[in-house]
């Protein structure tokens, strides 16, 4: 048990810090929390985020744990974590979309892609290409395997018809990962196939959906006789579920990796500045109790990630405990930001950056926190995963699990 950097780890950390300080200014941790939630308009924010990702990539820090032959550094997950810790000290525009979707697509192609498909990886890691995730449908979110978008073979192509929804950043995407039904005569999990989609193809229509934040970062995507060459199929026909599940578990792990200590520091500072019952709020017992409870969960997830990284660096398979990370953090951010608004008393409802404390960051993060409790698997679905896969409890009743998909609901 050693929490300190080894000499090699310390050398990497120093290298990262030196580079970061040569290209970026330190972040004022008292006013800026860098928790990477996308709360503004992606189209407005993305150009700067892309430039930052390209800079990192060119300096060897943008794709740390990817092998060198696909443009990565050939480093470790631990180094990636170390870099993120250091990066959080600087005032730089980090993007959640890159970390979750772009990188997730690259990991997926590394594992299941053909050489031609893998050729897309370097440009994706550099953020020259943007990807989107075409999974959810109006009638298939938590129950993703119940999706209805059809792909039918026609010569060397697949012809796709149907609708996706909640597709983050489809409006900007160059490529997408798609899961579609290729066989309705078998039970729902068995008839799915995975594809990559060139988003410039004919037969794709995107319509923005306005989110509760007011921004329009997700979309409906319609396919009308979209043709996908068979060369863009990922994995075998009928094996799409397996590929998608690997993608989703990576997505959840990435959402669990978040630097929240600055946010806790922000709440400590806020509690010093506001009052309860005539005394600084930080002296109030309930305030202290809440802050302690925030820290315990934040540290609990942070150290659970370290346990996972240790297993990886020992060449072992990480334990299942990281599953708790995503929903724990998502709920934590929602609780912490709501609490921060309470500490601001009446001003808690003010969104004008000039008049709300810390440029209204707590207000916008409070809106943003809604997203992580849903995307990538809801709280409830993930607790089912913990109960059934980790604790071995009997499954919920799933009436449609074994019947052919075309018989479901009949």
């Amino acid at each position, binding site marked *: *048990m*050693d*929490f*300190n*950097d*080894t000499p090699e*780890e310390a050398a990497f950390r120093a290298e990262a810090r030196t580079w970061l300080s040569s290209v970026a200014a330190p972040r004022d941790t008292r006013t800026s929390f860098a928790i990477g939630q996308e709360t503004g308009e992606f189209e407005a924010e993305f150009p700067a985020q892309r430039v930052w990702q390209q800079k990192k990539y060119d300096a060897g820090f943008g794709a740390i744990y990817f092998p060198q032959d696909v443009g990565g550094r050939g480093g470790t997950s*631990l180094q990636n974590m170390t870099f993120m810790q250091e990066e959080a000290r600087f005032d730089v525009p980090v993007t959640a979309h890159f970390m979750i979707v772009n990188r997730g697509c690259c990991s997926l192609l590394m594992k299941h892609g053909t050489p031609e498909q893998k050729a897309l990886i370097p440009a994706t890691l550099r953020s020259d290409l943007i990807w989107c995730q075409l999974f959810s449908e109006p009638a298939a979110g938590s129950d993703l395997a119940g999706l209805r978008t059809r792909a039918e073979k026609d010569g060397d192509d697949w012809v796709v018809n149907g609708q996706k929804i909640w597709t983050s950043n489809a409006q900007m995407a160059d490529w997408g990962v798609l899961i579609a039904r290729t066989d309705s005569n078998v039970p729902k999990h068995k008839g799915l196939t995975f594809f990559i989609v060139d988003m410039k193809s004919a037969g794709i229509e995107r319509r923005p959906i306005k989110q509760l934040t007011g921004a329009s970062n997700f979309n409906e995507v319609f396919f009308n006789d979209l043709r996908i060459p068979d060369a863009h199929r990922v994995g075998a026909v009928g094996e799409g579920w397996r590929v998608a599940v690997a993608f989703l578990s990576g997505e959840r792990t990435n959402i669990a990796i978040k630097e929240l200590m600055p946010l*806790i*520091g922000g709440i*400590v*500072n806020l509690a*010093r500045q506001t009052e309860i019952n005539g005394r600084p709020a*930080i002296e109030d*017992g309930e305030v*202290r*109790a809440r*802050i*302690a*409870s925030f*820290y*315990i*969960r934040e*540290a*609990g*997830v*942070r*150290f*659970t990630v*370290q*346990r996972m*990284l*240790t*297993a990886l*660096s*020992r060449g072992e398979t990480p334990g299942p*405990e990281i599953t*708790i990370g995503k*929903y*724990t953090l998502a709920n934590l951010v929602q609780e912490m930001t709501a609490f921060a608004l309470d500490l601001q008393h009446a001003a808690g409802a003010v969104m004008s950056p000039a008049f709300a404390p810390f440029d209204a960051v707590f207000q916008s993060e409070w809106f943003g926190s809604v997203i992580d409790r849903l995307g990538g698997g809801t709280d*409830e679905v993930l*607790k*089912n995963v*913990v*109960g*059934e896969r*980790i*604790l*071995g*409890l*009997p*499954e*919920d*009743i799933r009436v449609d699990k074994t019947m052919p998909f075309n018989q479901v609901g009949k």
Partner: protein
Amino acid sequence: MDFDFSDEQKTIRDEARKLLSARCDRHRVRKLLEDKAPYDKELWATVAENGWLGTAIAEDFGGLGLGHVSLCVIAEELGRALAPLPVSSSLYLAAEALVLSGDTTMQQELLPALASGQLIGTLALSEAMLPQHALSRLKTRVVGGQLSGIKLPVPHGQIADFAVVVAHNENGGVGLYHVDLRGPGVETQPLQTIDAAQPQARIVFRDAPARLLSADGERIVPKLLDRASVLIAFEQIGGATAALESACEYAKIRKAFGRQIGSFQAIKHKLADMYTKIEIARSNAFYAAWALEADAPELALAAAAARLAATEAFEFAAKETIQVHGGIGATWEADPHLFYRRARALGSLLDSTPVWRDRLVEELERQFAA
């Protein structure tokens, strides 16, 4: 960074688990409860023979010198087995207090006997409803080498051979004293407790001979409580994990409305919540174990977090394990109340949750200086 137990520590864990499942199963734990025995003497002799008690005691003092992370590993197994042993009093408290006191003469005299299990020690700190960290308010006092006052509760006070007593000295400072509990001026009265396997006593000292170990109690006691709380956290996590396992097992066999109750989400998600709290506690406890062994400056923050998370996890797991068992969970015959008792007893053993929260936030205030 290497954030897990080593292979050697995992071997210690496996052997401890094997031994305890053979020698300290639930029947035995229950028998002690029914016999109202304060501890399991036979098991004490066995674990002493196996060297467990000397795990973290230096080789120079008759221990194995394997370090505190190894002792954490054993603590988790003791907690999982609900072992009725005075390990916490004798080792996490008395031995640690001796080490922190810096009194090498007394260390030479007592640590080997603690490591071999020949002597049982304890810490006499609490005075009824005072928080254990409220040192300035202690009423026990040593004058001219003689201790007077009342300590309550003293963990394992009725079986301990000696106590490290925290008391005021003549100048109003706080000292650590060694007091022979078999000696003159000591009157020990066993108390009824929530958990018979965590026995407590009321001890009245009337001019009992007290040997000064250190006059630096203000510095040593908080550190001692930090260190002990990490070890207790591992016991709590072990207990919580065992409770979760028993609840899951029951949820798979018990049927209601034609289904296994574990297939109802109200039960399934409750168990998932238990698991979540346990893993949050375990990860905090790993960090604290490292800080304990490395004597890192992060110990105060890490120990408070481990303590709080483990207390919450065990209390939640214990009470909800009863709930999952339904009516049978409320009986003497079924095991869940063993967890319920132990969780509460360990939650009271070292300062309470509000005190630890306050200490945790003090550390955060330091970290995020205004």
